[in-house]
């Protein structure tokens, strides 16, 4: 199809997001689509500007990875008035705006957290387990949801409880710094049974902090995090990490297919195309997964 699609990407704040961009480009190329990407540097106002400018350019469709759930009504209405279909990638928006977009290809981040929590409950197997949590950026919807999902996941198990929770801003460096202080605050780490991080990058930092403090992550301290970026599989292969929940970077593929079908045949896609939140553990041949993922642009 000879199509131009504009993509308002959130930014390039993490390896996962870089991979999403790379994969999206590759998928567009596969389908011969003219794909324009605008990087919003984590700012909603920039995303709105980008969408407006896509409308002004007269693209055929707009992909939007919304940085926040609210505030899209008026700009999406403008796109609608210009008869340009919008597909949400990776994150959803507020239910009030349901009829303003064609479909949403997202994972459910509450579900991701829940998967992580359930894994931990299962692994702790009834033994008392103090968890420290590395949150994402304060206020980021993913952070809020992954926290909520995890809490749901462990809700039934009174033996598992979160003893400390701080933000690590989704970064390795902060993850490491925060973990260092958790270790000191929890008696040199002896009281910590498991670490839950809202993303793998923070967990990689936390693993370093634990090793430097003489702890053995993966055995003495359980780890579970989300995203499934290649480096966590390396850690898993080395026995230093236990589990991760995958968030696929390929959101654009299904979105392209939906748009093409919609444009060519008028097929209405379902309102929500949910991607899988697959749990990986050390048992899933981490080295092989690492190899398969390492060139995806993470």
């Amino acid at each position, binding site marked *: 199809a000879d199509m131009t699609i504009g993509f308002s990407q959130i930014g390039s704040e993490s390896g996962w997001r*870089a991979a999403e961009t790379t994969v999206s480009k590759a998928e567009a190329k596969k389908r011969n689509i003219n794909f324009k990407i605008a*990087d919003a540097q984590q*700012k909603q106002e920039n995303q709105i500007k980008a969408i407006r400018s896509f409308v002004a350019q007269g693209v055929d469709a707009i992909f939007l990875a919304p940085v926040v759930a*609210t*505030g899209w009504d008026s700009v999406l209405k*403008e796109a609608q008035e210009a008869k340009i279909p919008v597909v949400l990638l990776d994150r959803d928006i507020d239910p009030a705006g349901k009829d303003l977009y064609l479909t949403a290809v997202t994972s459910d981040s509450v579900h991701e957290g829940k998967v992580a929590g359930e894994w931990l409950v299962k692994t702790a197997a009834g033994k008392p387990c103090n968890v420290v949590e590395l949150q994402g950026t304060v206020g980021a919807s993913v952070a809020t949801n992954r926290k909520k999902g995890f809490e749901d996941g462990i809700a039934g198990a009174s033996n598992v409880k979160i003893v400390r929770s701080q933000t690590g801003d989704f970064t390795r460096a902060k993850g490491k710094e925060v973990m260092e202080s958790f270790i000191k605050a929890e008696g040199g780490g002896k009281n910590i049974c498991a670490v839950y991080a809202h993303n793998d990058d923070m967990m990689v930092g936390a693993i370093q902090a634990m090793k430097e403090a003489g702890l053995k992550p993966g055995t003495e301290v359980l780890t579970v995090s989300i995203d499934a970026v290649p480096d966590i599989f390396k850690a898993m292969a080395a026995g230093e990490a236990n589990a991760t929940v995958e968030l696929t970077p390929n959101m654009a593929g299904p979105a392209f297919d939906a748009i093409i079908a919609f444009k060519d045949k008028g097929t209405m896609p379902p309102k929500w195309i949910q991607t899988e939140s697959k749990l990986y553990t050390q048992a899933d041949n981490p080295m092989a997964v690492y190899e398969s993922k390492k060139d995806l642009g993470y």
Partner: protein
Amino acid sequence: MIRFLSRLTPVLATAAVFLAGFVVCSLIYPNFASLRVVMNLLTDNAFLVIVAVGMTFVIISGGIDLSVGSVIGFTTVFLALAIERWGVPPLWAFVLILVICAAFGACMGAIIQYFELPAFIVTLAGMFLARGVSFLLSTESLPITADLYAHLSDHALRFEGGARLTVPALVMLAVVIGGMVLLHLTRFGANVYALGGSRTATGLMGINVARTTVLIYILSSVLAGLAGIVFSLYTSSGYSLSAVGVELDAIAAVVIGGTLLSGGYGFIFGSFLGVMIQGLIQTYISFDGMLSSWWAKIATGLLLFAFIAFQQLTLHLARRSRRAPAGVHP
């Protein structure tokens, strides 16, 4: 008249640079030279222009206000909660938030004035505080569904080709004109310039420096609050992380517009143009759309450099005729 023009040189240079940039973009992208793009520039940057107007006052007086971005964020969260949760009528919520912002600005101004602390740090603390309080209020993004919002965001002067002059853009234009009148035509405005020229001298000339300083920060915070209202109209929501880093964009716009960061010189209209130049760069990059995230950043930097270098050159040529001390370089 010649004197007057020569004082306007920085603004004229900025205007020339903006126009040149617009023409170049239009030559590259045929869709660019449309009313729609121009109107989008006005609407999309409305809140930024509003804070930049306040920032211009602050910077001309020799200060700086780093809190504006956080104040916008706080305002949106407060409005969302007030309107949706606490059931305050939107217009009352607007009044309330502007009063809160004024008090906030007054506190910062008073601390700067009475404790003789650098504005940079006091407003940095203000920035932490405003953002921190909005986190405490709510970390979630909250939709605003009040009728007034739906009404205002639909309301716009429509032109052909889908161009719309929206309410935020109209508010912004009013603020620019009001700001120009206040700064350039009133006693208060003259005092602001005088403060930037020399704080001690202004005091010795019998101007109430304390009052002027406090008023300047009140103005900046109130305009940030107004920008927050516009932002909440623009997005129909409140979110604690909105407008992060806007203070830097605003400062950059003000300075690109020809205002001296050291105070004493500058024009509101220059700041308006400064925002427009930044908007133009962004629009150009999204029209291009082929740049990866990093190339987009590099291009933004290079374009900024090109604009500023071109502006320096224009200024240099304009000043060539006038005397400029050599060897003495600030």
